[in-house]
């Protein structure tokens, strides 16, 4: 069965300098049996100028839109449109300032999506979903807060889709989102009784900043991507990140009922918190509420969510993602370049420790050097090779500091009185005579050490595992998840523990070999490109089979054509050769037939009505 996938990226895939482009490229190339439509939001003018990667033939079309500028301000809104805009924006602002917990707690995360009231029949495939039984409310208060947060989530969704529909009707909302009425709505919401304490302190520049940020985040609303010839025609919308990148998918789901799959290798909300640390508190509070609610809405509407690691998964659960929708798909890495080293017997010099990575303060090489000093007390012949380049000016300064420390701790030493000595700690770069390739750098070590204090997904550790090396790493980031018992893990900033673990491994070649083999087996099973692609292939089929898009095929006069999509079109395998470009689920549709997507029953085709009454202000306090 050919699945037509709308791949939505933000500052990503087709651009040469995009984030996660390698992953997307491998995914698209690996799934040649499917068709991809790429919808790319570019992040800067420079990125656009640098051009695209070479696209494989299964990418049938690429549509791009800039996030960094606007093509035009959009049409000036008429009186009625302005009023509609004001209503929806005021609702949005009120939700942002409402002061309820911005995200649902973990106890709420098991809530089933169908139990949330669904305005305007936005859940066309509710019956097709696996039904989850909501956790029984443990206490009355938690049930109350759950209800309150569901109410807030619904209000946010209504406002968002209301703005989206207005943008679709009017052909753009850019100028309206920047206008004075938007700022005024924000001000009113901030000054309203029951607003967040921090929001109440918002001053005029804060309001302007928030309005500008919201306008930028909502730019996808003004795109014309949701028609039947674009995202409305795909079988599945795959957003490669949360936040703004997931917004087109959310709208495609709203307008055309296309199921949404969200992949996140890093949580947008967390990135936002870290990036906006300098902003005034009111701005941070409002924007955190906006991003938190957007994330919650994305997770609520997504058919499936694939976090890249447990850390991301925890954040997603925290932000209200339903646990039953989460499927962890680890990032895949090219294993072939380490195959030779991994399969060959261990040829490394005994007593050599290797550290590989980018040199920066977060890697805590100081700890490593202190640990090495302890190791030398036990194993005087031990050597340490630090392979990597400094990252940035800070990294360069740190490297100099480390070199000085190494020279202080370890005097140069030689074989005998007539030989030239050298330091047991060496600093090298990949490509140098000692370590021509990354694989050889790993191969030269009997034990690979990772000493970071802060780490995301430890790529170096995975590479070491591919090379079949025994590892000692600090317990940071996703290290424990990656290593999974096939290496030693010690607390960060504990040189003594690091040293003892290293000494243990240096003295026990049999255990080293066993751990290395286990690590390689684990890496080959979990972190290869192939497993990543296979996982997504399965997820695509699962999503498409669970949430098929219901399309009604119309004839020339606009009447529905019964049996226009034959039963065979839903059966796996190709029955009629490659399908014609236009209708995805109806390969044998009559020529000239139109496909319209139906996002729900006919009676629900209008604007979403407010499903709930506004939150009473007295209950809005956190």
């Amino acid at each position, binding site marked *: 069965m050919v699945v037509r996938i709308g791949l939505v990226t933000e500052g990503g895939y087709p651009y040469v300098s995009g984030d996660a482009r390698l992953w997307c490229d491998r995914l698209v190339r690996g799934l040649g049996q499917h068709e991809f439509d790429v919808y790319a939001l570019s992040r800067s003018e420079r990125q656009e100028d640098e051009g695209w990667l070479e696209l494989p033939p299964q990418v049938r079309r690429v549509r791009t839109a800039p996030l960094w500028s606007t093509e035009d301000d959009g049409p000036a809104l008429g009186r009625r449109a302005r009023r509609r805009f004001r209503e929806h924006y005021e609702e949005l602002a009120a939700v942002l300032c409402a002061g309820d917990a911005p995200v649902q707690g973990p106890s709420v995360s098991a809530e089933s999506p169908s139990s949330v009231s669904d305005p305007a029949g936005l859940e066309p495939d509710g019956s097709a979903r696996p039904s989850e039984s909501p956790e029984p409310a443990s206490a009355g208060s938690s049930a109350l807060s759950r209800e309150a947060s569901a109410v807030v989530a619904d209000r946010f969704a209504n406002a968002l889709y209301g703005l989206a529909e207005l943008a679709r009707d009017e052909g753009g909302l850019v100028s309206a989102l*920047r206008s*004075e009425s938007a700022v005024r709505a924000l001000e009113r919401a901030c000054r309203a009784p029951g607003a967040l304490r921090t929001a109440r302190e918002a001053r005029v520049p804060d309001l302007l900043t928030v309005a500008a940020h919201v306008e930028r985040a909502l730019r996808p609303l003004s795109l014309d991507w949701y028609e039947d010839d674009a995202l409305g025609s795909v079988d599945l919308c795959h957003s490669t990140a949360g936040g703004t990148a997931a917004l087109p998918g959310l709208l495609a789901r709203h307008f055309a009922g296309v199921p949404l799959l969200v992949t996140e290798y890093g949580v947008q909300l967390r990135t936002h918190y870290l990036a906006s640390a300098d902003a005034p*508190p009111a701005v941070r509070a409002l924007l955190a509420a906006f991003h938190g609610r957007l994330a919650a809405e994305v997770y609520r509407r997504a058919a499936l969510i694939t976090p890249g690691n447990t850390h991301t998964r925890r954040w997603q659960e925290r932000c209200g993602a339903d646990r039953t929708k989460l499927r962890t798909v680890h990032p895949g890495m090219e294993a072939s370049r380490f195959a030779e080293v991994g399969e060959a017997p261990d040829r490394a010099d005994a007593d050599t420790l290797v550290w590989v990575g980018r040199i920066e303060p977060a890697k805590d090489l100081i700890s490593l050097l202190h640990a090495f000093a302890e190791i030398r007390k036990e194993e005087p012949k031990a050597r340490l090779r630090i392979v990597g380049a400094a990252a940035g000016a800070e990294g360069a300064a740190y490297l100099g500091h480390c070199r000085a420390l190494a020279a202080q701790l370890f005097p140069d030493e030689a074989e005998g009185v007539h030989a030239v000595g050298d330091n047991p700690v060496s600093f090298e770069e990949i490509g140098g005579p000692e370590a021509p390739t990354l694989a050889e750098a790993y191969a030269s070590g009997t034990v690979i050490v990772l000493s970071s204090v802060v780490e995301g997904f430890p790529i170096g550790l995975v590479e070491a595992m591919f090379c079949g090396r025994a590892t000692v790493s600090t317990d940071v980031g996703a290290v424990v998840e990656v290593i*999974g018992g096939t290496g030693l893990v010690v*607390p960060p900033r504990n040189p003594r523990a690091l040293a003892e673990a290293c000494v243990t491994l240096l003295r026990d070649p049999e255990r080293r070999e066993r751990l290395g083999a286990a690590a390689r*087996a684990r890496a080959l099973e979990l972190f290869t490109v192939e497993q990543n692609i296979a996982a997504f292939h399965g997820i695509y089929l699962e999503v498409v089979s669970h949430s098929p898009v219901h399309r009604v095929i119309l004839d020339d006069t606009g009447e529905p054509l019964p049996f226009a999509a034959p039963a065979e079109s839903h059966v796996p395998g190709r029955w009629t050769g490659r399908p014609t470009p236009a209708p995805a689920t109806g390969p044998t549709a009559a020529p000239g037939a139109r496909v319209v997507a139906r996002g729900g029953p006919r009676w629900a085709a209008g604007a979403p009505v407010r499903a709930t009454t506004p939150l009473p202000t007295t209950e809005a306090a956190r």
Partner: protein
Amino acid sequence: MSGLGELDRPGTPAGAEAWDAQSGEWLGGQAEPESATETENARVDHDTDSPTARPAPVQPPHTTDRKPAPARRGAADPVKALMHRHRELCERAVDPLEIAAGLEAHGVTDRTATRFRHRDVFSLAEEMYARVPRADTAARHSHTDLATMPAPRAVWAVRALLPGVLCAAVVTGVRLTDGRVRSAVAVAGVLAVAFGVRMALGRGSLSTPPGTPAWRTPPGTRLWTYWLLAYALLGDGLLRAADDGGPDSLPTGIADGPWPTATAPVLALTLACVPAAWCAHHFAVRARRKLATSRGLEDFADSVQPLLLGTFALFVCALAALLALCGAVLGEPAAYTQGITLGALLLLARLLFVHGFTRAPALALGAAAATEVTALALDLIGRLPDCGFLATPVETLLGSWGPGSIPALACGAAALTLLFHTTRTLTRASAHAPADEPR
């Protein structure tokens, strides 16, 4: 993050008592904090459990040979110590998730959180958020960043002075030369002044913010502006000559030819680029300062309106002085009404344009120019046989107030409308929003 290491030292907790009244309630039910000596595979993620690998227990770091050092831990309340370490983060945070994100960025993991008797970083962050005192956090944030704006530098002043200087040079050249040379000087001079004006408007406070796309300029704005200036230079003379049955030759650039040229108002207007640039800069800076200090949008609008009107009045005064000066120096009538109305119109249009409002100035300039074109056309058509009645309104105006009344009326009406519009649009906070994000 300097002291994180001590958190990770294994050891028994310093005391079994609750560290404060709040924590006393749940302390009893909690297990002792785990030490760092458990095996690793117990914490492996469920999805990624490796069936092949034999679990490799971590060696207990140094629990056997060394007594833990509880003294280094200090207080009996570890969370308090952590809060002290991340004091700034805690005081700044607007919600618990922000603390959680900050803690994670400093290397705190769920494993670390268990040492503070919490299930994960999120609940640790929640406790920290609940416990942090925040009374005057908002007061500490000042809005200095918005008020800072690059001061006008000498380069801008030179740029703003350029059109005036060029125009003065051209006027002098035209007066000193004769015949063919004079026409050549006049043509070259017009081009030079146009170039100077573009230079003056291209940078500095009279320019649109960097990154403004070209589509923002409505078509015709530039054309109408040129027309209005050309009319100020030649229009009155043409009407006057037409009244006498002329003109019999092309304008020569001097005031006493067959088609007299009014150089004084144009020279004054080009010189007025300097006060205009200063006024625009003054307005922008003061408005931003008011933006940073005002409590609300209404408050801002109320405080910006007098600023706007004051700035406008200043410019009008400066322009009047320049007109008087140029009239005296060139020995021509100063033509105050035409000059001031046209100058006011151009300044208001530019101010609106700089702040992102493009439709209203284009309309006002177009209306003024169209009025002038109509008046001129009616007057000229009126000379044709049987069309005399068409010219009657223009003739009446010319008869009662002179030829200067036509541009004065056209530009004055447009400037008044625009002034009214400006007091409504430029007093909005959204007009003074910081420029767009970098591209």
